[in-house]
């Protein structure tokens, strides 16, 4: 199976690999997936409290090239959005942008789950109720 150019580009030059300080109240961390399933994503957002915008986003991913590309793309999309806007990122947008084949759709689902998990972590830390997540379609 050949990878799309965009997946190869994100894999070769991943954007925003790294770690934010998870102890900070304005940092939300989402850790999703499982090693036994061959995919684990950790996605973090740092919210600028003055503007309410996501100032920084970082990821680390254990997984195939499509999983790495999905999380790299997600961090790019998150930056500059409000937390509410970030909630609207849909896994199918990732599929479309990266031209993921059907067997790799679960990578985009995982990325969406990671975004939502990070946002919820941020909300809970800041006294807001966790959102009831219906979760992306598995």
């Amino acid at each position, binding site marked *: 199976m050949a*990878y799309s150019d965009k997946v*190869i580009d994100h*894999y070769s030059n*991943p954007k925003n*690999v790294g*770690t934010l300080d998870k102890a900070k109240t304005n940092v939300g961390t989402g*850790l*999703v*997936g*499982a*090693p*036994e*399933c*061959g*995919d*684990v*994503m*950790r996605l973090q957002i740092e919210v600028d409290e003055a503007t309410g915008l996501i100032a920084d986003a970082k990821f*680390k*991913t*254990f*997984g*195939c*090239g499509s*999983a*790495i590309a999905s999380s790299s793309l997600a961090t790019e999309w998150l930056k500059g959005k409000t937390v509410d806007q970030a909630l609207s990122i849909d896994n199918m947008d990732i599929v479309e942008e990266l031209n993921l084949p059907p*067997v790799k759709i*679960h990578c985009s*689902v*995982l990325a969406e*789950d990671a975004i939502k998990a990070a946002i919820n972590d941020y909300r809970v830390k800041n006294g807001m109720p966790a959102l009831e997540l219906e979760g992306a379609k*598995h």
Partner: protein
Amino acid sequence: MELKLPIYLDNNATTPMDPRVLEAMLPYFVEKFGNAASRNHSFGWVAEEAVDYAREQVAKLINADPKEIIFTSGATESDNLALKGVFEMYASKGNHIITATTEHKAVLDACKHIEKMGGQVTYLEVNPEGLIDLQELENSITDKTILIALMYGNNEIGVIQPVREISAIARKHGVLFFTDATQAVGKIPVDVQADGIDLMAFSGHKMYGPKGVGALYVRRKNPRVKVTAQMDGGGHERGMRSGTMNVPAIVGLGKACELCMNEMEAEAKRLSVMRDRLENALLELEEAYVNGSKEHRLPHVSNISFKYVEGEGLMMGFNKNIALSSGSACTSASLEPSYVLKALGLGDDLAHSSLRFGLGRFTTDEQIDYTINAIKETVLKLREMSPLWEMFKEGIDLDTIEWAHH
């Protein structure tokens, strides 16, 4: 010599054909096209002579009598013919077959079919080295057991089963012994007499011969073994495998066997030195583990797990330039990681992190050097990107984390 890319290190999947094999085959397409079963003209005689010669070449490699070689379309057909053929032929004697969980799918799925037909199959577990337990094998034999089916060398981890001890147990209990030796024949000495093998499957394209041709060895004396044909037709191959002989491919298989016969000993030495060099260099990485026995192993195979990186993601770092295979689920259609690695007791996470190296006749030292560097570099890069590696380095026990399973 300049290094030519891509590098092929997936010789357990298939081998390139040796140019000398192609040369031997070429006259049998256009010029000498006869049907080996045409008994009354020279076209047929020429073809028959070529098939007879190939049969001798094949038999010689495994120390068999030429009459004991049944040509087939490949190892999958040979596996099916051996298992189903014995099951049918010896139905009056019993219906029980013993095999192992690490066998090739062609054996396991044929066994599943036999179970549906009313057969009983015992699937032996293997130890963490990938080896079966001989005592367990012997204990599994019942008065209904007709066949022990255990592979010679494993396709994923290269582990070699104790074939002579297995055949001794089979003999002692009057049970036939079939081995799928697809990865072993032509790579290491396989001797059907000394090894006590009654039936044996192997294939052309794993030993630098053409695809679409293989053989089943069927012992003719002590004991005389027969299998029920699985295809009806003209009664070729002593009635065990009908169908017009694939003369060019059979000539190619014969030539491939002859070349292996002459070159195997030196080649096995050369490859094991190269394999060990590759393996030792990669094991310098932290948290890298060889899967399966290092002692009882084919000389050209290595299977290594690089913990905390995922196999397919790893291969993507170099698969433009190096052809390998992985036990990762992502590389298979089923999304399940390798059942062979899981049978060794590896967790799914380690199975997902594995690479299989299959060296071959055309592998060079320069290729190995390039591969060592490319893999080391990619593993380090992906570990920098791996949340699991970060947790491991922080001393977090990953087993204590509640993972969200999909």
